[in-house]
C-alpha cells in the first residue's frame, strides 16, 4: 500500500473498462486522492472537465469504446490540468502534439502510476 501522498488531490479518472476504472479508483483512494468519475466515454469525460470546479490532475485512457480520447486530452490541456495517458498502444499511435504527455502502458504498474500522478500533480 503506497503512502497517501495524494491526499486531497482531485483526480479525474477516464477509463472505459470497468474493471480497470474500478482498480484505479481504489488505488487512488488508497493514496488519499479524491477520485472524480471514473468516466468511460469521451462525452462524459468532457462533461466532467466542463463541470467539475477543481481538477488537480487526470488519468486518461486513450481508447474509449473505440473512440480516441484526443478531444479529452485537448480539453484538459486547455484547462491547464496536468494528466497522464494510459494506453495499450505504442507511442506512434499518438499525435505529436501529445508527445510531452506522460504515458502509462497497460497493464498499469500501480505504484509507478501513483508516482507519475504525484509528479505531475505537484509540479
Amino acid at each position, binding site marked *: 500500500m503506497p503512502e497517501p501522498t495524494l491526499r486531497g488531490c482531485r483526480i479525474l479518472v477516464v477509463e*472505459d*473498462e*470497468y*474493471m*480497470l*476504472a*474500478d*482498480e484505479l479508483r481504489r488505488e487512488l483512494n488508497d493514496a488519499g486522492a479524491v477520485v472524480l468519475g*471514473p468516466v*468511460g466515454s469521451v462525452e462524459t469525460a468532457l462533461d466532467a472537465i466542463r463541470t467539475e470546479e477543481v481538477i488537480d490532475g487526470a488519468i486518461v485512457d486513450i*481508447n*474509449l*469504446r*473505440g473512440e480516441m480520447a484526443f478531444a479529452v486530452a485537448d480539453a484538459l490541456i486547455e484547462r491547464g490540468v496536468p494528466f497522464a495517458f494510459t*494506453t*495499450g*498502444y*505504442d507511442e506512434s*499511435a499518438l499525435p505529436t502534439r501529445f508527445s510531452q504527455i506522460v504515458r502509462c*502502458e*497497460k*497493464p*498499469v504498474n500501480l505504484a509507478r502510476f501513483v508516482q507519475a500522478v504525484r509528479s505531475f500533480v505537484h509540479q
Partner: protein
Amino acid sequence: MSGHSASHAADAALRESDAAMSKLLMLMPAAVYACDTEGRLTFFNRRAVECWGREPRLGDIEDRWCGSFRMWRPDGSLLMHDDCPMVDAARRGRAVRNMEVVLEQPNGARILVSVNIDPLYDAEGQLAGAINVFEDITERKRGEAARLDSEAKLAVELEDTRLLQRISSSLIGQDNEDAPYATILDAARSLMRSDMASIQVLVSDRQQLHLLAHSGFAVESARFWEWVRADTASSCGRALAADRRVLVPDMDRFDGDPEEVEAYRRSGILSVQSTPLRAHSGEIVGMLSTHWRKRRTFDDADFRLFDVLARLVADLIERNAADAALRESEERFRQFGEASQDVLWIRDAETLQWTYLTPAFEDIYGLAREEALAGDNYRSWLVLILPEDRAGAMAAIERVRQGHHVTFDYRVQRPADGTIRWLRNTDFPIADADGKVVLVGGVGHDLTELRETELRLQSLMEGIPQLVWRAYDGGHWTWASPQWTDYTGQAAADSLDLGWLAAVHPEDRGRIRASWAEAIDRGEFSVEYRVCHAGEGRYRWFQTRATPVRDAGGRIIEWLGTSTDINDMRELQEHQKVLVAELQHRTRNLMGVIRSTSDKTARTSADLPDFHARFRDRLEALSRVQGLLSRLDEHDRVTFDELIRTELAAINGDVDRVTLDGPSGIRLRSSSVQMLAMALHELATNAMKYGALGQPSGHLAVSWSLERVQSKPWLRIDWRESGVDMSPSNSTARGTGQGRELIEQALPYQLGAKTSYELGPSGVHCVVSIPVSTTTIEVGAYA
C-alpha cells in the same frame, strides 16, 4: 752554151741548191741530222741540238752515228750508238720508219723521239751515208697514255653504270617479297671491287639490324651478325649508331671487342665499309656493307655509283615494307569481311554492280553469292527487296553516290524460304584522289531478331499490369504505355513531357519533383503518389520506380519507369496497422482485467485453495469468450444465444432445469461480449453454487428479446431463478456479490446497460438491457 760551162752552171746551181737546202733543213721544226758511212756527223740542225741537249762537232769520231748523250729502247734497255738504226741505213741502205727511241740528255732528262731514217747516195749511186729526221713525241705519247687510261676507266664506269641500270630496272620490276638480294650483293661487290658484301634491314621495333643476305661470309660470322644492335662495335652497328657511313680501312687498327674481331678474322676481312640505307624521310631502314680481304684506302669517288645502288636498295626495302603493310592490311580487311556477320559490300559507283560481297550475304539473304553476283546484280538485289521498301533503298544508294553517308532500313524476302528479313544498311561513298565517288561501300546488318525482340518487349510492356513510360531527366516523358492512357483517360500525346502530372494528385506533385531532383545522384527514381483513375473518378496509390538507361560512358540517356497500383496493398497495410494496434490494445486491457480479477478474487477468497478454484474458474470464462471472439471473421458477431449456451454448457448445469427462450442470431457488439460473458458467468456460477442450478427444486429461465428504444435495437435479457431456497443461512454464502457488482455497476458503466438485480423469494431475478449491433458492419468497435 758550151758543155763545160753548162756543167759549171749546173754545179753552181747545185751548190746554190745545196746551200738553200741546208738552210732549209737548219730551220725546219723537225730535228734532222746526217752522217757518212763511217758514222761521222755531216749535218745536224738546231732542233736536233735541242733534242740531244748538246751540240756535237761535225766529223768528230767520238760522236758517231748520233749526237745524243745516251739512247734507250722503249723497253728500257740501253741502245748503243753502234747498234742504232743509222748504222743499218748508212751501211746497208735500210730505211727506218717511226721507230721510237728514248734519248737521254747529259742532264739526265729523257725524251721520247720518233725516228725516220733514209740512206743517202752519191752521184754515182753509191751509199754515202744516212739521214735521220726525228721528232720529240714525249708529250704526245704521254697524252696518248693518259687518253688510253681514261678510256679504260670510262669503259669500266660505263660497265658499272650499265650494271646499275640493270639492277635498277630489275628492282623496280620486283613486286614479290623475295627481293633479288643476290643481285644486289653482286652489284655491290662489283661496284666496290670488294670481296664480300652484306645487306641488313632495320627492324625498327627492336632497333636492330637483321642480316638479309650476304656473300662471302664465313658461316660463323654470318651467324654472329644475324642481329646487330646499335651499340655493337661492328662497322654496321657503328654506322647505325652514328647515323652515317663508317669506313674501316685497316682491321688491324679496329678496336672492337674480341668476338667482333674474331668474326671479321674468320671471314678474312681486313677492311670494310657500311653505308646506311635511308628511306625518303631520311630514316635508316637498313645497311649495305662491303668487305675486302686486303687493307685499302677510301675515296669519295669510290662511292659515287655505290651510293646510287644504296639509294635503289633503300627504295626497295621501303617499298617492300609498305607493300607488306598493305598486304597485311588487305588480308586483315579480307578476314574481317569473311568473319563479319554483317554483309559488307562494295559497289562500283557508276554501274552500281557489286565488286565485293562478303559471305554473310548468303546467311542473311539465303542466296549463294555466285547467284547474287550474276548478271545485273544491282537490279537483282532490288528484286529481293520488298516492293514497298524498294524506292527508299534506291534513293539511299543514290544519295551515297552523291557523297553522303546514309543509313536506311529495308526488308528482303529470302528466295530460299520466303521469310522476311529486316536489314539496316550503313552505306558510304569511297572517293578517288580527285574526290569523285568511285565506289559505294556498305554494311548490312540483320535487324530481324532485334525487331522481333522489340516486338516481344513491346507486347510485354503493353501487357503487364503496370503503367510503363520512358522519360528524360526530370520526368519529361517521351513515351507512355497504352495502360497509362487507359487508366487515366489522358491522350498519349497529352501525357508527354510533364503533361502526365495533370493526372497526379496535386498534393503529391511536390514530392515527385523532389524525387526527380535526387534521382540522378541516387541512380534511381522511387516515389509513391496518387493517380486519378478515369473510370472510378478517384485517386489510387501507385508506387513508381524508374531506372536509368546509360550509354557506354555511363551517361544517362533516358529513364525507364513503371508505376504499380498499390492502392489495395496500402489499404490492407493501413488496415493491418489498425488491427495490430487493436490487438495490442485488447491484449493489454485483458491483462489489466485479469489482474483486476485476481485482486478482486483474492480480496473475497477465504484461503488459497478457494482463490485458486475461483480464479481459475474466472480465467476459464475469460478464455471462452476470447475463443468465441477470435473465431470471428471481421464482419461476424457473436450472437447472444451462442454466448448463453456456451456459458451454461461450461458449468455443467443440469439442462433439464434450464429453460432458454428467445430468438437466435441477435448479434452482440464485440465490445460488449467480454463484459456480458463475465456477468453471465458470475450469475451462472452463483446459480450453480447457491441457486437454481445447485438445488434439486430449482429452475432457471433465461428469456431474451430484441426491443427498440428510440429506434435503436436493444437486447433485453431476463434471468429468473425459481424454486430456490432463499433462507438466511443460504443467503450469506452469496455475499461476495461479484455477480451483482458486475450487473449493477460494470454493465451500466461499460456497456451503457440498464440493469436490475433482485433477490426474490424463490431466487434471483435479473434483467439486463444492452444496446446491440445496429448494422452488420462495425469496424473498430472494440474496447
